[in-house]
């Protein structure tokens, strides 16, 4: 199998690795970098669990090859909370809103939901409930019925506005 050397910046940190050209970005993140926060639910681009931010825009990491991201910046769920290792430190306002609104049950779709909603809130800081539903229409959740995810997103938008923060 053909391999190439790539350098990818993940959550602000550069990683250089030799990867097979056919390796997906999801597998690169999960297996080569050990960043298992990004989840794989369908491997054909429908469920959205593997969604990451590639140069700030959402992308399916199951449909992206690792070699395509050479020289690019990726953000994953692991990079959202300011102090992820500190159990008592506050998380990102969107993560806090997810917890406060019970927007996750099994938590498997959550990484893709969070990255998708980050993009939404950057594009549209005060979305309506209907706009949230459309924004997450490419992310499947089998547990929540989406209602609390919509509520959490609206709540997060309010918190960010109150704090004068960008998502």
């Amino acid at each position: 199998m053909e391999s190439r050397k790539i350098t990818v910046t993940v959550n602000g940190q550069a990683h250089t690795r030799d990867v097979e050209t056919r390796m997906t970005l999801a597998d690169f993140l999960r297996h080569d970098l050990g960043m298992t926060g990004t989840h794989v639910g369908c491997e054909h681009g429908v469920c959205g669990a593997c969604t990451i931010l590639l140069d700030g825009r959402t992308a399916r990491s199951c449909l992206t090859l690792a070699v395509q991201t050479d020289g690019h910046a990726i953000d994953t769920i692991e990079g959202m909370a300011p102090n992820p290792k500190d159990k008592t430190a506050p998380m990102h306002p969107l993560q806090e809103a997810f917890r406060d609104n019970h927007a996750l049950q099994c938590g498997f779709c959550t990484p893709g939901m969070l990255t998708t909603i980050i993009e939404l809130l950057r594009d549209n800081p005060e979305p309506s409930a209907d706009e949230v539903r459309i924004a997450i229409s490419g992310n499947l959740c089998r547990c929540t019925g989406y209602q609390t995810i919509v509520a959490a997103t609206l709540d997060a938008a309010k918190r960010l506005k109150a704090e004068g923060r960008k998502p």
Partner: protein
Amino acid sequence: MSAPSSPLRSNRVLRVEDPDLLKGSGKFVDDMHLPGMLQAAFVRSPMGHAKVVSIDVSAALEVPGVHRVLTRDDLLPHLATEFIVVGLPSPAYKQDINRPALSGLEVVHVGEPVAIVLADNRYIAEDAAALVMVEYDPLPAVGDPREALKPGAPLVHSSSPHNLLAEFDMGYGDVDAAFASAPHVFKESLWQHRGGGHSIECRGDVAAYDPFSETLTLWSSTQTPHAGRSVLAGMLGWEEERIRVVTPDVGGGFGPKLIFYPEDVAVALAAYITGRPVKWIEDRREHFVATTQERDQYWDVEIAVDDNAKILGLRGSIVHDHGAYTARGVNLPYESAQTVTLAYEIPAYFMNVKLALTNKVPVTPVRGAGQPQGVFCMERMLDRVARELKLDRAEVRSRNLITAAQMPYTKPLKSRGGRQVVLDSGNYPACQADALAKAGLADFPARQAAARAEGRHIGLGFANFVKGTGRGPFEPVTVRVDPASGKVNVYSGATAMGQSTKTMFAQIVAEQLGGDISLINAKPGDTGSIAMGLGGFNSRLAVMAGSSAHLAAIKVRDKALLIASKVLKLPIEDLHLIGGRVEAKSDPSKSITLGQLAKSVAGVAGFVLPDGVTPGLEATEHFVVDDMAYANGCAAVEVEVDAETGGVHINKFVIAHDCGAVINPMVVDGQIVGAVAHGIGNALYEWMGFDDNCQPVTTNLGEYLLITAPEVPFIEVSHHESPTYLNPLGVKGVGECGVVPTAAAIMSAIEDALKEFNVFIAQTPITPGEIVAKIEAGRKSA
């Protein structure tokens, strides 16, 4: 730390599971990596039915990075039995059809595993799996369970005498007499389909064998680790002691993960045979062809009523698609048939149930487990009665619903375990009235007329349900104070798959042990930490494991107070537990932590325990209850149907429900809303299709439609609380409830929207095309 201002139970407590899951540090089975681990891929049958003539693995073994390819012949020397025998007991079986670990003689459904390839990574394993040459000799296949039962139908298994897997009758009263004298009898044929579980995390296993301790550990995304251990031990011919099954974080269960699968035993044996850890993670296509589903039931039913719409009797038959093997038992159609009459007074009932083998992946419960079908039957028939007798649909139900004054109400039915069915509590008419009021029934006729004047078709529908929850007989829980940390560990065979089990344990245990949830460390789903367990299914964990945790926590509390009274030399009455320590009420400076108390009874060689105290600060409880706690409710829905396209838009959805005492209203809302969304999918979107040769035709999430956010309306939940007397918490299960009435309510609403076309819907799901066809038929006949 001060005492909690309100009781922990019944409060909206934030979940202990969330921080890890939100930060990407959850621990799902695919997140495990062990040194030297091999990755597995399965070779699966591409045919619905065929003889396996030969399997040639030589080309696969030549692929660099491939270590082994195991077939049935490789597994057999290690197996006491090659069959996975898991059928729940029943006298109804006509034949025992159990799945083999790997199929090597005859494949009976697409997706059945015939070989496991072990390689350095999954990419290589899949490359090699494609090179395993299996020669098949195709045999005729049958997929429609009604066809399968006809004389001369192709045999699902060539060695079987016929395709009738099981048959039973259920009922009571003189149903023939009731029908013979009934002034009105209405008859319907119903087709009910439910799809797959489709947790967003597919199945997965990691297995490792330790030759020093001669033990095998299987980490699996299973809902039932103890059952898995038991089955695996039986198949290997090992003591259970040598096997540990651990359920890590699970990305949704929904039923299919309670089953023990061929892949589970193949992965476990592969680790044993190779001496290397082995991982297999199911992909979505495999989930479509190899994970159990719920699929099809065909009902022929008739209802007898008097002139006042009082039900005189209900009778009929069900043909149930069982799939190619018994992977759980006859329980699913049993629950369907048993659920039909639950909410109503029905003097006579008879149902004949036939389970037909088909050349499809086995059928086992998906969230709701046959009960949505029973409710669908009853509610569709009551809508038919209302229409025929020109009565209000709510009035027809009110005349037949069991009332609160009649509770507890004994049904002349036996549960699958032989127990009398007794509806313990609930106010069914109140739930119906509440749901209809909140759905806007009062002014609905005016709104409907106004909409119609604008050319729009809106309709209101509803359905009542009663659902058995808290399946017994027990779910043990150990509560143990860790002497080193003072933390309270909670162990159970209960499994957490998204339903907030750890939070439930934390609330219930902390309530007795000082009120600090952060001290509770719930570790469910590990056979290594508790001897017995049944697992998570049938909306049972809050009822069964919650009750055991409650009782165990009370024992630990009482013991902590007793030890503290000895150590502090104070009367028990002066002591209370608060934030991880026992404190004197009279003098808060006198206190001792739970950790110190645990140490004081952990034993020091040669030194005596405090007077009258037994060793260890822990308790294990096996709360036993055989009778089920019956939850109930009513779903009311307003839809708008586009008469040109057949598109259904849900304007409003209300569910009034009663799951007894509520432990955490936030979690209960989440369970209800999520299950309703699942039910909407069952009504309008989800369909697992097969062609005439039993080839699945919906094998990705583009072809098989899981509901997405824009299709789900805001779902309003109204709580009613009728605590049950069956357990110390007064709780009933809730996990499945929302799915149970939903399809029936939606069909009722669609019919109401299209009443000018005289549409009757006798199926679920229904597609826009089918709705248009019904409208066209109605226009022609008008």
